[in-house]
């Protein structure tokens, strides 16, 4: 049984090439491919900047973290960015242990992440 993860999308006012994406559930090895496909579709559609709201992301493992790093790298290559907001302390600890806090753009909340868009 695949872990449950749901992505909800929302436009960001005044930012035609940006999208807010709410991650809901667990991100792990069983669903990374689904998430990878959905986010890559956004890149293909021209959304080069993504603000990921992790308020309802309960869990992430090393495989999930791997695709987050991939999204960050891909967005930068396309001239955009992949920003993360509202990370719970358990998920943050995993990111920190892996040493990815300097590689990912992490913000306290969505407003701050949106405000940091160039």
């Amino acid at each position, binding site marked *: 049984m695949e*872990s449950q993860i749901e992505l909800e999308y929302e436009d960001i006012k005044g930012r035609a090439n940006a999208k807010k994406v709410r991650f809901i559930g667990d991100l*792990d090895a*069983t669903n990374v491919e689904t998430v990878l496909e959905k986010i890559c579709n956004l890149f293909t559609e021209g959304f080069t900047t993504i603000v990921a709201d992790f308020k309802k992301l309960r869990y992430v*493992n*090393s495989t999930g973290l791997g695709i987050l790093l991939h999204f960050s790298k891909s967005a930068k290559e396309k001239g955009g960015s992949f920003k993360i907001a509202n990370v719970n302390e*358990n998920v943050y600890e995993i990111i920190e242990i*892996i040493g990815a806090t300097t590689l990912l753009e992490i913000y306290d909340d969505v407003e701050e992440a949106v405000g940091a868009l160039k």
Partner: protein
Amino acid sequence: MESVKMEIRQSEFKPEVTVWYIEGDLDSNSIETLNVHFSRILEGNRFHAIAEMSKVSNISSAAVGELMGCRQVLSDKGGDLVFAGLSLDCKAKLTHLGANKIFKFHSDLRTAVNAYAWEVQQKPEKVWLSFPPELNFVPPVRQLVSRITRQKGYGQRDSFRIETIVDEVCNNAVEHGAPDNLRDIELFLKIDRKKIEIEVVNLSDPKKINSLKAISKSILGTNEKKLERGRGLSLIKMLSNDLSIDFSGKGTTVHVTKLREE
């Protein structure tokens, strides 16, 4: 109204525990019988007692008061009196009287004996399970382990870390296991109040064994955070207090010890 019957026996599983079988209506008329049997418990010098009450039809407030007194005496001698097998009606009545703040309620006798072993003797509990080497089986396994740790009183943060360790070890076992899926992955847990030991055994893929040994050696011998190969293993190492991997024989055995922090 059913007259009360009582019997005192040693627990079949823990002879140092007294089981006080009570049957019928525990009303004010039963207090004398109750005191006679309680004296026998004291004479037996076994001060941990379980009142097995699955056949108790009613409890009066007078009887509850008497049982509170019995509990106090046992408590003063380093023991306890707990209830097992209460009916919903009796449980509701005891809760209404506030007795749930004084007595521990257990669903049945076996659960009460296990709780004694866990809380008083601090004996570890062991869990063994096996599952097919497929990724989709890993989330329910890691969530089950997390719930076990929560149920055993571990904090939310510890449980999350343990869930992550189990997830990473099991994912590695699936990813690097023998391709023919001949043998299930086995997970052994040994949990006590201070630590959990996790052991995962799988049949290794002979083609990957040398590269696995090299990655493991490199990660186990350094404190560096790895961002490419072996990210999961680095995570396990950082979250646990001890990690060892044994490649001897046909299988791979990963053994992790995680101390309780909360």
